[in-house]
Structures are given as structure tokens and as C-alpha cells.
């Protein structure tokens, strides 16, 4: 419904609210904020048509810092609030910022239902693998054995893999990026913004206070070429400092091959297709993080077309109205079995 308009006059600072940003110095949330403010003018949407909804958590303070319509809701419920808004107002561009506790713990149900319903929402998960705002308890994405205030002897929970869960819940757009790779982050935000349907974007976000360094391996200059693999549409899965390693599929398992080993060539590698109708391919990507020997994929895992919930609602209303004519209250009142009293 959101028709692209010319918004070239909009600038990042038009999206900056007058509130002081209150995250801890060094928090990964800052880079997401400034990236969003850079990406929004590129989406061809009027400033007043953006709405930013959030739950509770550090990441959920986001709307206060955006000079758009916004709501800081209650813990875990942002996807449901956003769903109501989008169904009521398909003309708006509705974004949600949420944390791993907010979306995956208390908000898990709304998350999976938003995915399955394919409502045209952008869900940006700030995954810092910790409860930031409540000062450091392990979250559903924390690794097993994590020592925190609520797990002084190590957590005993096996974590969720957010992208796997989204895929299991039928999400039509699944992507991952890093707070520190600003260029990629912006590209992904743009892609999420352009997708029609529930767009799930996981951002690996560093919490400097309670879980500092969770993603250092993926962001450090020295290591990132070996630990991260960028998915690019139509391209073979290549990584490594010199792009001399790749991912090939063995049975259902992705394995690393060395292109210099004299045995393998680029032809052996898996070629990325984000539009693959089957979610199996992206499920393979999502599970690569289970294996320390494999690089962690970032990029768009999956992006397929499917009627959105809000479109379907509108379509149905139009169809019924076409058939029955616009509802008239007087006739509704007087419909059915009536009788007269004189």
C-alpha cells in the first residue's frame, strides 16, 4: 500500500528526535540508530508514515530517539501492537525494535505468529544475548553454561537460534547482520524495509556492560574474514581473507572446502538463492552457527513473495463490499426477523 514517493529532501537528521540518547557509551544500539536514520530517507516513504513500535528493554528505547510516530509499549508485545496498527493502517510503514528477551522470551508467541501471518512489519532484533535493561541475566539466546546474576553456576538452557525459529514459523524474510558492519547493516535495513511481509532482521549487537565481546570474533579485523560469510544473491558461498574458502553441501550438511586444495573448485560451492521457495536452504544457513568450524552467515537468508496479512484483510473487505454494497447502519438495524407493534 505504501506507494513510493520522492523523499529526496528527507535527511538523516530529520529522523533524530530531540531526546538525549541514553544508552551506555559504546553500546551497539547506537550504530543501529544512526543506520536507521540514514536508511529511512532512502525508502521513498513520507516521514509521517513511519511508525516505530517497541517493547521494553534497552533496544526498546529506540522509538524515543526517532522523530517519527512511535510507541514504547510493554515487554514482549511490540509485534502484536504493530500487527494491530498495520492491519488498521496498511498505508503506514511499521517497524519494531526488540531485544532477545523482549522478542524471544516473553514475546515469543507474538513473534512466531507475526512470522506466520506475514504482516508487513519490520522486526529488528537487537540480539546481545543478554537482558540489558534488567542488568544482566542470561537470555534465551545466551549460550548454555553462561554465568550471569541469575545463573551464577552457569545457565542450563539450550538457546534458541533466532533465524531457525523464524524459519520454523514460516517467515518470508530472514536476514542477519552485525552492529559493527555499518555498511552491511544499512543494506539489510534497506532490504527489510523494501520487503513486503514480516521482515525479520537479526542484528548481532554488543552490550558493552553485561556481555561485552560476545561477537568480537565476527567483528574483529583479524578474525572476521574467517568467521563470517556474506550471503549474496546468485553468488557461491565464499569466505576467507582471500575468498579462497567456500561452503559446499555434503548430504544435508554444509562443510568448508579449501579452494586451494587442488581438489575443489568454485563449481562445487553452494550458490545462494534467497528466493528459493523451500525454507530448507535457509535452515541450513541458520544452523551453521551451531558449528564452530563453519563461518557464520550474514545477509538475506530468505526473501520470498507471499500475500501479506494486511493485504488479505483489505482484499477481503473489498470483495465483500463489492458483493454486498457498503454497509448501511439503518438497514443493518432493521434486518432479520422483525415485527411491528402498533
Amino acid at each position: 500500500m505504501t506507494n513510493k514517493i520522492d523523499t529526496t529532501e528527507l535527511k538523516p537528521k530529520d529522523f533524530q528526535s530531540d531526546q538525549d540518547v541514553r544508552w551506555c557509551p559504546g553500546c551497539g544500539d547506537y550504530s543501529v540508530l544512526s543506520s536507521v536514520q540514514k536508511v529511512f530517507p532512502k525508502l521513498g516513504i513520507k516521514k509521517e508514515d513511519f511508525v516505530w513500535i517497541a517493547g521494553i528493554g534497552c533496544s526498546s528505547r529506540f522509538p524515543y530517539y526517532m522523530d517519527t510516530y512511535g510507541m514504547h509499549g510493554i515487554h514482549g508485545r511490540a509485534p502484536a501492537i504493530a500487527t494491530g496498527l498495520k492491519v488498521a493502517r496498511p498505508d503506514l510503514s511499521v517497524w519494531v525494535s526488540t531485544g532477545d528477551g523482549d522478542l524471544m522470551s516473553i514475546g515469543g508467541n507474538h513473534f512466531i505468529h507475526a512470522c506466520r501471518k506475514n504482516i508487513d512489519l519490520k522486526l529488528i532484533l537487537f540480539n546481545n544475548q543478554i537482558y540489558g535493561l534488567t542488568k544482566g541475566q542470561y537470555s534465551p539466546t545466551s549460550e548454555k553454561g553462561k554465568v550471569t546474576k541469575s545463573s551464577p553456576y552457569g545457565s542450563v538452557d539450550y538457546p534458541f537460534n533466532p533465524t531457525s525459529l523464524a524459519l520454523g514459523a514460516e517467515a518470508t524474510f530472514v536476514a542477519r547482520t552485525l552492529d559493527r558492519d555499518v555498511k552491511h547493516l544499512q543494506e539489510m535495513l534497506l532490504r527489510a524495509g523494501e520487503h513486503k511481509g514480516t521482515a525479520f532482521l537479526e542484528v548481532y549487537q554488543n552490550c558493552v556492560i553485561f556481555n561485552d565481546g560476545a561477537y568480537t570474533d565476527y567483528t574483529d579485523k583479524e578474525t572476521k574474514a574467517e568467521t563470517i560469510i556474506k550471503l549474496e544473491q546468485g553468488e557461491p558461498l565464499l569466505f576467507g581473507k582471500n575468498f579462497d574458502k567456500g561452503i559446499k553441501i555434503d548430504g544435508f550438511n554444509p562443510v568448508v572446502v579449501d579452494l586451494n586444495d587442488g581438489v575443489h573448485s568454485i563449481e562445487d560451492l553452494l550458490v545462494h538463492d534467497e528466493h528459493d521457495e523451500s525454507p530448507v536452504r535457509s535452515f541450513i544457513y541458520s544452523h551453521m552457527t551451531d558449528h564452530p568450524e563453519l563461518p557464520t552467515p550474514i545477509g538475506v537468508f530468505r526473501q520470498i513473495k507471499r500475500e501479506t496479512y494486511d493485504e488479505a484483510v483489505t482484499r477481503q473487505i473489498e470483495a465483500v463490499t463489492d458483493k454486498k454494497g457498503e454497509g448501511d447502519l439503518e438497514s443493518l438495524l432493521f434486518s432479520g426477523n422483525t415485527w411491528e407493534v402498533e
Partner: protein
Amino acid sequence: MAQEEKNGKPIEQLNDVTVMFAGDSGDGMQLTGTQFSDTTAFLGNDLSTLPDYPSEIRAPLGTLYGVSGFQLHFGATNVHTPGDNPDVLVAMNPAALKVNVKNLKPRGIIICNSDAFDAKNLKLAKYESNPLEDDSLSGYKLFPVPITSLTVAALKDCGLKPKEVTRSKNFFALGLMYWLFNEPLEPTLEWVKTKFKNKESVICGNEKALKSGYYYGENTQLFASRYKIAKAKLPKGTYKSISGNEATAIGLIAASKLSKLPLFLGSYPITPATDILHHLSKYKNFGVKTLQAEDEIAGITSAIGASFGGSLAITTTSGPGLALKTEATGLALMLELPLVIVNVQRGGPSTGLPTKTEQSDLLQAMYGRSGESPVAVVAATSPSDCFYMAIEASRLALKYMVPVILLTDGYIANGAEPWRIPHVNEFKEFEVTQRTDSEGFQPYDRDENLARPWAIPGTPGLEHRLGGLEKANITGAVSHDPENHHLMTEIRAQKIENMQNSIPDLEVDGDSEGKVLVIGWGGTKGSITEAVNDARKKGMKVSRAQLQYINPFPKNLGDVLSKFDNVIVPENNMGQLAKILRDKFLVPVIQFNKMRGLPLKTFEITEKIAEVLGGKND
């Protein structure tokens, strides 16, 4: 009681009658009852109904817990309840007889399907011997009719399967009742034709069953007399029979039209509220958007989202669902967004008695949220009043930018009554302003009612942020300032108090001062009215009032109460309104409380009135 002759049978004229149709859940008793009500209403009687069905979908045949009943009270005057005790019981099997005979009036009529009184069914109903044959029913007028076999015989040429044939026996019973109460078959025959258009065999079966029941009455010498109930003196107009849930649904649509706002419903199914969702989802051509949410929390939070977006936003539920919505209700009140929460009360606590009625969510509606969190609470007093109170709830929510809880209950939600249909032009349009002017805009600015402006996304220049953290008054910035918090707490309470200026005063039926006032709220109106009328007939002097507005109370309530020596508060709970009255007015009210999952019995209230009047030696 005038007597009249027709077809050789004397016709007795009655003022009002209560009939109970009872059978297995698969016996079509709800349909039979509804048809009978519709015809009765069509004839100009006033009426009130009480469907009562098991919580099982199709409980195994013949069991006591599988009995489904439909009680109907109709008459020329004084019809405000479905009746304390039936005059006539139609029992399709032993279980139906067993469950219901204890409520029947002494000397009441029992019509039962004698075919169903076989050994198996008697055992299922835990009868030691056949009550049609032993003497146990000698206190009643018993009419055993072989309904099944007569129906089978009548329908043999319709081309129906045996199962379909026996399923038509309810129409035989209905026909017999039409004969007994001197009512025409035509309305039902019409209905059958429309409903089963193109299903000739079904039309045939229903017609034949209905007619054979009627002729059976006419031809047999079973009944000594027939009955007739005079037309009620009802205000002139076009009427229809309406249930509370239906009335709520179309009341909300009316509110949407009156406010010129699109209607959004976020809801999760729960008995007895689900029918509102069912009704509203039919009206897509009114632009109504219904979202069957994943749970109650998503039901209300999606409505909050829609309200932010500028819709008239609704969520509907029953007790346990309201419990789940409390956190989000707190959010809506903090955001100061309009929201209507419809709670159709049922028997609690917990899952309780889900298909039974009760008024026990009042305290939850008033106080069931964290922090100081006043919301408006209104209640509907009858099935058709649900229509008006749905409009009122919406009007108040939009005018004061607050959540409003509308309380109805299982009894008025499922029960039906004749309703004089109002015309659209009888209603004032709501004055709703959605802010468009950015000049001087402040999100928590206040109008004369203390309501803040509603500025919806898509409006250029009004971009702002709402949230559940305490807000600075006027600017809406997050504020931890102690004095601001106290102020905002007062403002949120004051907004609700201010509503007193736009709600009607409480009307007293009867003298405005005296020895006894009986005051109720919501769905007990029928029982209390009938009880007070009965008491008056017995010479007692007693006044009556029924609250529709509970938070805030009508302005004159304190005054009203102060004019009576005794205030009796009958409630279908353990005294929840009584608590609030004592708190607000320090009056030592006299409670009358029953928790039986049923509407209050009229005669018990009348007894209470007598006791209070008699107990005072003056």
C-alpha cells in the same frame, strides 16, 4: 382468566408463562426455543430467554450432564426475566426430565417424549424406575407423547435418512407447543423455507414434523385446554428479538458510524464472548476489521496499535481473558488512548463454570491492574441494552481518551428479548477530533475534559512518541519527576471523575425516598425489576434503581442512597458493588448474594425485601 372455545378446546387466557425446552445437546433445543420465542414475539408478547447448555460440545446421548435447555418466559406484562420456575417442561428424554423437573412449578405441565424412556436412557439418567410409570410425577400434569415414533411415521415420504428423520423430532414438539399456546405455524414454516432453500427433503421433514405436532394436539384429547397470552402493551415501533452479544456487536458498528471511525476488533475466542467476534466478522462491508489474535494479550495489544492508528478499537473477552489483558489495559490508560474492552462475565474463578452466568468480574474491572490505574466501567442491563451501552462505552472512550470496560454477562449475552429498533437519526453523532494542526501541538496537552489530543500516524508534523513510562504532563516527555507523577496520577483519576458530567443521573423507579431502595447493576435488572413489581403487588413500598455507570458513578448516586433507610444490593456475586458503595458512601448496605451460575431468582429478592421491611418494627 377468560375462557374461550376454539376447535372444541377451552382456551385459557394467561398473563405470562414460562416454558422450558430440554433435551440432548444434539436434540436442537436451542433452535426450538429460538423459533418459539420468535413466533411469540411476533405475536406481540414480551419475552425473555435463557439458553443453558453443557460445556461439552456433544455430550454423549442421554447423559445428565449432556442436557441442553432453553427457558423462555413470555407474557402480556411483567416479563423481565426468563422466569424463576417453568410452567411447562418439554423433556425429550429422561435425563432432560430429571435435570429440570425439580425447577418446575407445582402442578406444572410436563410433555415428554415417551419413546425415549427406554431402559438405556433411564439408566443413563440414573432413574431406578420409569417416572412415567411410577407415581413420582403425580404432583405435575404429565403428558407422555411418543414423539419419536410419531415423527418417523409422519416423515416417511420425505426421502430423509433415518438419522435426519429422528433429528426432526424437535419440530414435532415445537408444533405441539404452538398448538398448546395457540400460535401460528407460519413464521417457522417461512424460516424453514429460507434456511433450507434447495434442500427439499429437509424442508419436507421439518414441515411435516411441525404440522404433525400441531395436529397431534388438535386431534388427541390429551390436553384439557389450550392457552393464550394477550399481547403485551409495548411502545409502538418495529421490533426484533435480539441477544446481548448481537446487540453489543451492532452497537459497536453503530458507534463506528456515529464516530466516523473505522472499527477494529482484536479478540481471542472465549465462551461466552466469542459470538461478538462471530457477529462482527460478518460485517466486512462495514469496513470492520476483526483480528482473531493468538491470545488475549495480542487481542488487546493489537487493539491498542489500531487505536494509536486512529481506529475505534475494541477487544472482547470473558473473565480469564480479562485477567490476561490487565497489563495491557494499564498501558492503554498510560498512553491515554481510547479503547473499549468488552467483558462478558461468566462463572469463576479460573475456568469455573464457563457456560454459566455471574457478575463477579466487577472488582477485577475496577481494580485489577498494577499501580493507580482508574479506567471507566460501564455495564449493560439487558440484551438490548448491550446495544446502547456499547455505544456509550465507545463515546466515553473517544471523548476522554481512556480505556472503558463494558461489562455484560453470560445471561444477557446469550439471552434474548424483543427490542424496539431505534432509527439511526435517534442518535447524536460523536464529536471526535483527530488533531491535524501542528501549531502548538503537545502530545499530553489537555482539553476541558483533561483529554489529550489524538494525533494519528500519517499526519504531517505531529510525530510524537507514546509509552508506558510516566510522562510529563503537556509535553509527554518521559519524566521521573516526583511531583509530576503525583499530578499525572491525579489527572488520570480526574478524567474518569469528569465523565460524571456527560453521563445521565441515576433514575429511581418508585418514590425517591423511603424505607427501601433495591439497587443493582448490569444484568440483574430483570430479576430485580420483576421482584420489586411483585413486592409492590403484595403491598410493599419499595423503590428500585439499576446502575449502568459504575466508574464513575452517576453524580446523584450519593444523594439517591441517602434518601433511603435501607439499601438492598442484590448481586450475582458475593457483594462486589456493595463493597464499592460502602467505600464511596459509607452506607451500611444490605447484601443479597447468590453464586449459582444462574440469574437471580425473583422470589428470593422479593423475600429479602419483605424481610427488610418486616424486620424493621415501624
